[in-house]
């Protein structure tokens, strides 16, 4: 049922329909280049001045068998003329490059939504492979949707004919054709994509660059010339009214990388990054490997253990050592982390959480490593834990992690997740000069030095680095004397040292901001308490509920350990507390344990971010009961 939405005026001039917000989902085989298509559309959209949020959703298999449902890769973008915080609950437009993509994603498209279909791919074989009993284009499956059926493959082949590419190479351009069409539909500039293609292929394979650009332009032209009898709907999404400033699109991974570099600079230290590839954390290793000119040394270790150990060795030598992984890898690093805790060396551990346990859902997002971060070590080994809440916040959270690590001579865990790591958002680029310095003063030769002499205020031990004359000393994992730093098995000394290490970490609570309320009243009927990447969804749900007159507030915890000093008092001011988490209930245990509050969980463990509408419904339900 192809429907005409964009009316042409009698003079043929196109009338674009103005909409405030659109959610588009590109879906296809994992080899179809959907992530690339989405990323390019995102760049153009960011440059157009819309606010946006994205959600890349891809399978663990790199190239699953073609045409299968488990090989479907998708990229969703929500862009708007107003401030948005999530990639959107449901797509307004689904671009389905094959039957499997339609099969997987159709259930998310609301009735009346638009579906762009690459009809060439709807062969009997592909239809069967996707699990459809009959051809969905013919059996009424799509009756309630606006469908735009195009032979994208044929169109692409025609567009690149004569450009000297093979048939296979030509077919690989079909994602650019689809991107061109979407650029036309939503009035996006193609130039950023053209620039990108030329940069990527221009020198190496000029014919491939030409073919991709030709496909992009052909898709665009197809929309413009409206070859379909009913025309193609065309829209315009006005610019968002955002804070003046210089912006860029940023993913959580990029922001963490830049934050670590900035943190090291503010501390006056070199950054050493030891890591081992693991989804979804590897991209941080890739990003930092390209920042060597900023005092960064990267090291791909032989395993997770060597990764954390190399970082500890670098901190021992006077760098800020950083390691990163996802939950299973962090589990392997645990012994190393406790060594850094016992030896009181600075260290930052970045955990990009993913669906677990074990291999779990490597490419899907989850928040299920909070217990691991807060409690998951042998012995009395409390560590500061920071959870970044948006892609842009990853930058500041990483700086904060470095600051706490070097100020308190302790490992710090920085939690992100698969969603934050991959999702992009427009980011007002901060002025680095406004971030305060926290320069490290290494110990210098003086009377009475020993390695475990402590600062009276922070309780941090002094940091003397190898190479410093006169301060030769030995540290290690064995308990040491509070008074001399030498090995000590003395019972009272161990009690004292355990208490001092705990007090040091607890004292960080005096050096972090008090908990604020993100939205809503400072006391009332209901507080929705979240942490990490659920910030956007919870905030939008609470804002909408507030607009509907409900008595609800949003509290988002960034410092998961130690918790802000005022948090208990703040929570006591609400009748009910709802804790949405993408896990089976972890922060809620911590809150109940610390503050004895009657919190209730809202748990979604699907590997997908919360939908705003689900959270709104939950809020309404709590307030009505």
């Amino acid at each position, binding site marked *: 049922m192809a429907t005409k939405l964009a009316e042409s005026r009698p003079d043929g001039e196109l009338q674009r329909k103005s909409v405030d917000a659109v959610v588009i989902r590109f879906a296809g085989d994992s080899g179809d280049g959907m992530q690339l298509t989405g990323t390019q559309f995102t760049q153009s959209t960011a440059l157009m001045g819309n606010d946006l949020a994205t959600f890349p959703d891809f399978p663990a298999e790199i190239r699953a068998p073609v045409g299968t449902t488990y090989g479907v890769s998708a990229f969703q973008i929500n862009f708007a003329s107003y401030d948005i915080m999530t990639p959107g609950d449901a797509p307004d437009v689904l671009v389905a490059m094959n039957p499997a993509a339609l099969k997987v994603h159709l259930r998310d498209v609301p009735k009346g939504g638009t579906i762009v279909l690459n009809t060439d791919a709807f062969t009997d074989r592909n239809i069967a492979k996707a699990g459809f009993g009959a051809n969905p284009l013919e059996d009424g499956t799509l009756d309630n949707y606006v469908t735009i059926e195009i032979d994208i493959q044929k169109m692409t082949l025609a567009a690149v004919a004569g450009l000297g590419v093979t048939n296979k190479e030509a077919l690989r351009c079909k994602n650019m054709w689809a991107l061109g069409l979407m650029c036309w539909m939503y009035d996006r500039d193609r130039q950023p994509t053209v620039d990108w293609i030329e940069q990527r292929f221009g020198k190496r394979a000029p014919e491939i660059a030409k073919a991709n650009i030709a496909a992009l332009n052909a898709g665009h032209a197809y929309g413009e010339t409206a070859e379909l009898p009913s025309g193609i709907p065309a829209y315009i999404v006005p610019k968002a009214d955002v804070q003046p400033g210089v912006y860029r699109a940023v993913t959580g991974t990029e922001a963490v990388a830049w934050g670590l570099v900035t943190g090291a600079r503010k501390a006056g230290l070199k950054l050493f990054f030891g890591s081992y590839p693991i989804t979804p954390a590897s991209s941080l290793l890739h990003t930092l490997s390209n*920042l060597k000119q900023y005092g960064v040394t990267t090291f791909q270790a032989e395993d997770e253990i060597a990764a954390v150990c190399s970082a500890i060795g670098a901190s021992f030598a006077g760098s800020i050592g950083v390691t990163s992984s996802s939950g299973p890898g962090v589990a392997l690093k645990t012994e190393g982390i406790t060594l850094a805790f016992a030896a009181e060396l600075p260290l930052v551990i970045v955990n990009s959480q993913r669906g677990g346990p074990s291999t779990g859902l490597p490419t899907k997002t989850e928040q299920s490593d909070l217990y691991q971060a807060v409690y998951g070590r042998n012995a009395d080994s409390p560590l500061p834990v920071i959870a970044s809440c948006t892609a842009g916040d990853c930058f500041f959270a990483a700086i904060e992690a470095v600051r706490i690590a070097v100020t308190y001579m302790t490992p710090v865990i920085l939690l992100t997740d698969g969603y934050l790591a991959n999702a992009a958002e427009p980011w007002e680029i901060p002025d*680095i000069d406004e971030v305060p310095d926290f320069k490290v003063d290494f110990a210098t030769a003086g009377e009475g030095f020993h390695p475990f002499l402590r600062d009276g205020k922070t309780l941090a031990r002094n940091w003397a680095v190898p*190479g410093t*004359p006169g301060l*030769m000393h*030995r540290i290690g*994992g064995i308990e040491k004397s509070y008074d001399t730093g030498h090995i000590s098995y003395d019972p009272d000394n161990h009690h004292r040292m355990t208490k001092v290490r705990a007090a040091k970490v607890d004292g960080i609570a005096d050096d972090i901001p008090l908990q604020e309320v993100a939205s809503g009243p400072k006391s009332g009927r209901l507080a929705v308490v979240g942490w990490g990447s659920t910030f956007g969804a919870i905030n939008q749900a609470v804002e909408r509920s507030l607009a509907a007159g409900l008595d609800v507030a949003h509290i988002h915890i960034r410092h998961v350990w130690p918790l802000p000093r005022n948090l208990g008092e703040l929570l006591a001011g609400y009748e009910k507390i709802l804790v949405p988490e993408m896990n089976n209930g972890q922060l809620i245990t911590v809150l109940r344990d610390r503050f004895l509050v009657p919190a209730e969980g809202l748990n979604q463990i699907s590997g997908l971010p919360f939908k705003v509408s689900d959270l709104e419904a939950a809020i309404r339900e709590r307030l009505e009961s």
Partner: protein
Amino acid sequence: MNVQTPVEQLKPADYASDQEVRWCPGCGDYAIVKSVQRTMADLKLAPENVVFISGIGCAARFPYYMATYGFHTIHGRAPAIATGTKLANPDLDIWVVMGDGDCLSIGGNHTLHAIRRNVDIQMLLFNNEIYGLTKGQYSPTSRLGTRSPSTPQGSIDAPVNATVFALGAGARFVARSVDTNQKHLPGILKRAHAHRGASFVEIIQNCIVYNDGAFSGWTDKAAAADSQILVEHGQKLVFGKDGDRGLRLDRDSLSLEVVTVGENGVTEDDILVHDETNRVLANLLGAMEHPEFPVAIGVLYCNPAETYDAAVHRQIAETLEKTPPTDLNAMLRSGRTWTVAPG
């Protein structure tokens, strides 16, 4: 040790820390720490530039007894920690001390990779073929049939040969010596120190409590001459009280055989000459075991190449030259940005 004695005047004792040594009386580690301290004094090393990094086990207590920088870490991970320390500050002179369980069991992976990367560190393996600190279990270098608390009927897994393992990992410096051989060990330590890259040294060490005499069949003074072969680059591979025994290559089986000059038509020309740049020969020498063969001590292999830390810093320097760093504000503003104008 906060005293600033000029390096030229430092004596072996000046490299000893003020900590009481806690090894069992008669432990081979005493002899090794003495050799190391003597080596430091002979080399006039500035104590502040020297770092000892160890894992867990009896041997791993080593750093506490040196008046240098030291880091007693976790079981098996010393090579990984040392790699980070060396990359962070390539000027440091780093010595890794490991026992056989540390180096070849729990830490085998890190040993393999530190060696194959060729990180410029000295890796000392104190091989006593037993777990001491956990009270006597068999180790990955224990000989077949070793009776221990965990193998009351005798061990049934084949031991690993440390030098052959190191060569297999791509080591560019492999040597062997004996704890009590104070004439030999310091020389080997100096060679290891002079070598740029991962220098792997197996030090045969007697555990007086749990494996006493494990090596006495070839390390005792009376037995040494006929059961050890001192390998030196460019020298004939000869041994024995009379110096008339030697190693010949059996060209049919590509293996070594022990021959006596003057017997069965063997002449001096048949005896192999040691070439420490020959990896194949190093493998054959390292694999020789008592009593079928004399045990080879000395530098089995030395063939330097660019070190990992040098290569890492070369790439950093190349990056700096190609893309000079901007200030961080410019870094954040590189790539696609857009400006939202006020009002």
